């Protein structure tokens, strides 16, 4: 009954080959089936269909936001975005729950002096760009999510260039958590304000609207953008720092 030990690797590789063949066949079948189904998809008539037409025609008038994507995200379907930021909030708290360690990362070596100085000069400009993307979300491409990611990138670059302990000393995790929650609460607060001022949850606050095209136009959209921007930035930074944490037992 025993299989001779010499032939075992062969059998194993044969098994692996069989498995690979099986998977390839199955995946080819899926590809075929998908193609067959998707090729029957009629061409997209786009603007002739009801929903999109409405946004193109009255999006600007309704929301005052030049960027119609932002208008959809933070006004028409603002509840989705609230849900989204809640998802990030939940994901962050989950990751912190999974990875909670007592030890903080202590590594202060970082890269060379030249890189450090250069980054020192660059950082304000990166931050400025991030803030620009956030605050001009309703006027130009961009918005809270995109700007928030740029802000988080600063934090990540810090940990690479100056060593992972640097950022902790500047902004403690508590600060980041407060920033994140502050962003979420801004969103929620504007939503509740919508109930009291306009009678519907997350309704655009009309009295905040100024002349279209200026920075303070589009009602509550810029404020939501700012809240979401800080939230996403702080959240991603927290995720990053949770992941690079180490315990005493591991060498670093």
């Amino acid at each position, binding site marked *: 009954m025993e299989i001779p030990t010499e032939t075992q690797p062969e059998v194993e590789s044969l098994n692996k080959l069989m*498995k690979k063949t*099986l*998977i390839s066949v*199955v995946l080819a*079948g*899926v590809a075929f*089936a*998908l193609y*067959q*189904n998707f090729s029957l998809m009629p061409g997209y008539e786009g603007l002739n269909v009801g929903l999109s037409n409405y946004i193109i025609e009255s999006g600007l008038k309704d929301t005052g936001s030049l960027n119609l994507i932002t208008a959809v995200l933070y006004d028409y379907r603002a509840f989705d975005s609230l849900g989204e930021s809640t998802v990030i909030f939940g994901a962050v708290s989950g990751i912190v729950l999974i990875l909670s360690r007592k030890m903080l990362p202590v590594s202060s070596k970082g890269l060379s002096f030249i890189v450090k100085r250069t980054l020192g000069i660059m950082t304000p400009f990166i931050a400025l760009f991030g803030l620009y993307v956030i605050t001009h979300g309703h006027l130009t491409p961009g918005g809270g999510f995109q700007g928030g990611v740029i802000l988080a990138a600063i934090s990540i670059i810090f940990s690479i260039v100056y060593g992972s302990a640097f950022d902790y000393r500047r902004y403690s995790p508590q600060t980041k958590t407060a920033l994140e929650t502050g962003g979420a609460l801004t969103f929620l607060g504007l939503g509740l304000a919508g109930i009291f001022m306009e009678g519907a949850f997350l309704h655009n606050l009309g009295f905040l609207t100024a002349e279209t095209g200026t920075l303070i136009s589009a009602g509550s959209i810029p404020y939501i953008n700012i809240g979401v921007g800080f939230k996403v930035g702080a959240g991603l930074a927290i995720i990053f720092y949770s992941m690079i944490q180490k315990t005493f037992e591991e060498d670093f």
Partner: protein
Amino acid sequence: MAVIWQQFLVSFQFESFFPLLAEVGVILTLMTALAAWNYIRENKFWYYALTLVYLLSTLVVVLTNDWFFFLFAWEMVTLATTFMLAWSDWKLVRQYFVIQFSGSSILLFGALAANAFGYTEIGVIDSVPLQFLLIMGIGMKSGLFLFHFWLPPIHSEAPAPVSAILSGWVVKLGYIFLLKIIPMETGNTFLFLLGLAMIIYAGWQALRSADLKIMLAYSTVSQLGFIALAIGTGGQYAFYGAVLHIIAHGFAKTTLFISSGIWQREYGTRIIYDFKDAVSRRPITSAATILSFASLAAVVFTAGYNSKYLIKSAQTPGLLTTAVFFLLGLLSFLYAGRVLYWLFIKDQDYSTFFADLKQGFNHYQIYTHDILALLTGMLGIIVVGFWPEMPGEILSTLVEKDFHLLSGLRDILIYLGISAYLFYNNRGFKVEARGNLSLENYLQLFLNFLYGLSRKSVKFDTEKIFETFFYNAIFNASKKLHDFVYQDFTMQLLWIPIFMIVLLLWQQIYSYF
């Protein structure tokens, strides 16, 4: 809530002979309750609580004509009696529960099928396949032939009052149900044949057992055979006979099991060869035992004679019928007589009988409760024996019936002669007491048989064989299936694309079939 309560009350049906049967059920339960007062020592409160639940639900089972409440109440009966077995052994609880539950699953299926075919209330069912399905359904619960295998081990191992309940009334619920659904005019041939097989097979087994309670359990199966045969025959008198036999056997078997409990406490054994000075030690218990066995053996002026006579008279008259029933009667007479022979006649010394009786030495104290229970049973047997038409208006037509007591007497005398001859020449059919009769042993025999087909017999661990069958065998099979399905993670993920293909190409796949 109110609606369901109303529905519940409306569903009661006080017609035909079912109220009578319900009354008998109550009396029998009270008998066992009396007997249990001194037999059950621990957790008495819970025992009587279960008895109450049992009593109420049997009433519902007998009287209701709504499928739902019927099944509901029968499950309650099963549950209550199951937990009563715990006063003996938890192993029994487990086995009994598994068996009863599989039985009720079949019954549930049958009931639902009947419901689906338009029989919304419990009543006469004309369709033969449905009758068959329902007979199969009660088969496991009421110990019909081939499904009876669990009955002797469990009825003999249970505590005496619980055996009395189980053997005296619970197994009869199925036949009461059959009385409701089998048409009186036609009967059911299949049931008739089953009954015949039960009488002969279980009678033979009862003749070959040395253990009192096992013998009683087998005789239960044998006597249930008469009921099945009667219902299978069809016709008014056969049905009356079945009802009467349910009552007669209920009284006799309840009394016998109660007294068997007393004998067991008295002698510390259940082997019938070891009983000495039975009459002088416990005269009333002896009288009850003798009278009940006489009823089982259909001696004239006992309840058993009337019912068996009715069943016999319902058959098509002829030589064959006469011969067959003569032999069946002989069989029951033999196994009943054999026990009495060993208990009271063989190797007994009656020389100092009256002195012993006066002195009243006995090992187990005589309690008033027990005596009351036994007297009730005896009274029942005698009353039904002398006045079969007695209970109310229901069986009133039996007044006109001629019971041919003289021919009965003649038959009894012939039986007595034959059995006396056989006993004296064969040393009273003395057989060795079999080892503990249990479902595990059956299983071992069965497995040995299966193994023997291919190779020589293998020794099994009998302790664990029941577990092995019900658990390990099934578990290993399911484990194998599980291991087959659970290949490595790659294969598990691969099910998603396979599933996708099947669904995406479903139209094409469907068109092939």
